[in-house]
């Protein structure tokens, strides 16, 4: 055989994936120590990111709200109640139509700016129980959520922001809905995870809660959880939801006093 045809061998560089391994190693160390390691943004495990919320960014909508939790930025517009689309089946009660979409620049890797069907369905489920659908028969309320920047805990923030927008639109509701998620890392539970933390989590839990009525409208549990931790995590979420709801109420009261 000629020299040109000899099969050349190749080997990957020894440093491939080193960064990833290092991070995983570091995380494993922390988990083994079971210590309160500092999070990337300097929070402790049970600290939420500062919540900035505001009503009325979209003037064309019946109601709207903007939320910024750390890097996560969400804008929600509510339209209606307006006439349901002709193709829809007849219904005596009102309808809630939810749509969650991402901008092309929401994620570090430039995306398509597509609708997120899964989040849309989950947002609908979370809000459905809180809205008095019988007060606007045969009509539809449209909730459009746009994620400007995705920085972790997107869905809980969308849900909280949407409930603020619904209240701003004057849609009758049983209560405001707020939502908080936690991530599970081994023995530890960290609240309001960023996208990095979400990427490394063992399991996650999201709770959508109506604080005044003490009712959970949605609960999503994924991944690996050890016994006894779930109850703790749910309680943690519910308490955080109540506190977030106080912020929402404050914003609504501010907006209402500004209007006068």
């Amino acid at each position, binding site marked *: 055989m000629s020299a040109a045809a000899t099969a050349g061998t190749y080997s990957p560089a020894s440093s491939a994936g080193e960064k990833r391994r290092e991070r995983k190693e570091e995380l494993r160390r922390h988990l083994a120590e079971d210590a309160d390691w500092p999070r990337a943004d300097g929070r402790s495990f049970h600290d939420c990111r500062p919540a900035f919320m505001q009503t009325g960014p979209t003037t064309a909508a*019946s109601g709207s709200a903007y939320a910024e939790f750390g890097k996560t930025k969400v804008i929600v517009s509510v339209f*209606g*109640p*307006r*006439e*349901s689309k*002709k193709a*829809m*089946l*007849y219904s*005596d009660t009102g309808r809630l139509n939810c749509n969650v979409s991402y901008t092309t620049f929401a994620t570090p890797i430039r995306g398509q700016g597509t609708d997120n069907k899964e989040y849309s369905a989950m947002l609908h489920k979370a809000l459905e129980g809180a809205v*008095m659908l019988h*007060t*606007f*028969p*045969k*009509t539809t309320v449209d909730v459009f959520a746009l994620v400007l920047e995705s920085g972790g805990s997107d869905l809980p923030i969308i849900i909280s922001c949407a409930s603020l927008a619904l*209240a*701003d*639109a*004057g*849609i*009758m*509701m*049983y*209560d*405001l809905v707020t939502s908080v998620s936690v991530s599970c890392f081994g023995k530890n539970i960290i609240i309001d995870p960023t996208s990095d933390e979400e990427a490394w989590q063992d399991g996650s839990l999201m709770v959508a809660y*109506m*604080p*005044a*009525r003490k009712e959970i409208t949605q609960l999503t549990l994924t991944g690996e959880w050890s016994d006894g931790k779930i109850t703790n995590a749910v309680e943690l979420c519910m308490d955080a939801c109540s506190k977030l709801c106080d912020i*929402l*109420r404050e914003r*609504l*009261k501010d*907006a*209402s*006093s500004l*209007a006068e």
Partner: protein
Amino acid sequence: MAATAMDHDGGEVVTPGELLGNSSLLAGLGAYADGRCVRASITGHRRLVPPPPGSTDQRSTVEVVGHKAHGAVPQPGSVVIARVTKVMARMASADIMCVDSKAVKEKFTGMIRQQDVRATEIDKVDMFQSYRPGDIVRALLSLGDARAYYLSTAQNELGVVSAQSITGGTLVPISWTEMQCELTGQIEQRKVAKEATIGILDKR
């Protein structure tokens, strides 16, 4: 969030879900009863309304008013003002403009079917002799089907309240089926609402 009694417009601002009081109060506008307590369902000012004199129930009503509520929504049984957009052989379509005394913000389509135009001789109705595009009609609303709300004008007080003739003059009602043009004196056929004069719109 304690229920401090305030019975004027400047009452404290409440938000959906907030406690307004216990079952010693009745839930009014923007409030709902939840088991043994009354809660707000919209953002606004809390207001107490004393019971009407002579009523058997001596409880006050608590309501939430003042802040923006969503636009009026057609409710079954409400009297609406609609503008006729299209007249066909068996029905006419109309855009709803007012529900009771409130203007609607969004577009709602209503449909007046041939059998709903008047109360008698409903099979002899000629749609073109009853409505013309552009007429302002007072009608009773029902939810209808998936496509449109059904509007009925089968009552004396319901029907055309304001219309223009072909020449563009205002039509003046002369009987419950006829209207006359102010400019030319020409008579046109309409299903006229009783007392169809300007200024009647806010009577209800």
